[in-house]
């Protein structure tokens, strides 16, 4: 049984999709959650779903990296020590390469990549992480390893997390900070519902048929993430875990 009691876990993108499911699972396993969400209403709705109390919500748009420093300073002032960090915030743009301008790259990378690494950078400082160490998890995607048409920007952003997490794992091991990536396949989230609207029905059907175990649910991903957050995973770092119902084994 996974036990996250006494741990503060900071989760970006906490108010929907995978972030919400991870928040719920971690709270159910005893953690106190520091939720980072762009939408206050959804953030408050999420907190009401969490077991336990004392969860903290920051309503901020982390596309602006300056707010991340503000969040970390606030946590230090509250004398909170972080034992886990999950970067689940992310956006997706389905666009042909010819429309994938540097502006689009910046928009996607600001949230998917830069915000995650900025949190990792600031959390790696001595005075914010728990003295016994911490577990960082960057939510990448199976599309960080697979080429998918009309997904150049998204694929590149998710691939960046995989590579960066390994470097972070090597660099922070001496501080007992582990860093791993989780690479979900298609799970039933709002973002995926929007993605499915933007592609032809036959393409949607093909994608679903290419998952031997069917599409995933956010709680499947949450189970793996909370394992990696826990002390049960204390010898795992620099790893990237595909969890996709068999999608990538073709």
């Amino acid at each position, binding site marked *: 049984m996974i036990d996250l009691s006494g741990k503060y876990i900071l989760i970006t993108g906490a108010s929907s999709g995978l972030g919400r499911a991870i928040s719920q699972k971690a709270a159910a396993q005893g953690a106190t959650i520091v939720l980072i969400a762009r939408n206050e209403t959804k953030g408050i709705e999420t907190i009401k779903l969490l077991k336990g109390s004392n969860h903290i919500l920051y309503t901020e748009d982390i596309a602006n990296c300056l707010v991340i420093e503000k969040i970390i300073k606030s946590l230090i002032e509250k004398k909170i020590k972080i034992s886990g960090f999950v970067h689940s915030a992310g956006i997706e743009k*389905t*666009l*042909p390469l*010819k*429309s994938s301008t540097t502006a689009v790259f910046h928009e996607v990378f600001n949230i998917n990549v830069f915000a995650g690494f900025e949190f990792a950078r600031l959390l790696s400082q001595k005075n914010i992480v728990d003295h016994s160490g911490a577990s960082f998890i960057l939510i990448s995607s199976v599309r960080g390893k697979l080429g998918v*048409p*009309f997904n150049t920007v998204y694929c590149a952003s998710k691939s960046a997390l995989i590579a960066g997490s390994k470097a972070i794992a090597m660099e922070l091991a001496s501080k007992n900070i582990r860093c791993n990536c989780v690479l979900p396949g298609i799970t039933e989230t709002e973002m995926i519902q929007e993605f499915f*609207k*933007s*592609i*032809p*029905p*036959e*393409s949607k059907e093909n994608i679903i048929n290419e998952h031997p175990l069917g599409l995933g649910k956010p709680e499947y991903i949450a189970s793996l993430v909370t394992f990696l957050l826990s002390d049960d995973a204390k010898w795992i770092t620099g790893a990237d875990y595909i969890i996709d119902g068999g999608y990538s084994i073709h």
Partner: protein
Amino acid sequence: MKKNEFIKQLAEFCEFSKTDFSIETKLVSIDGYDSMATMSIIVFIEENLNVKLTAMQINGLSDFGSLIELIGSEKFDHD
């Protein structure tokens, strides 16, 4: 943008082998009209006319005229 210009630019964006289509041209008769083209159509219309369509809406269309009607004639300049 006038309707004929829209059709021409859309055909160029989708990289169809021809661009001299008319409002009556049946979409399924176009060489290269496939699921990738559908996604390109969605992107082109959103970028140029600020109208967001879905793949399902486009799949149900017969010709460029019905596409223009779906977008809304008010989005185009008068011929």
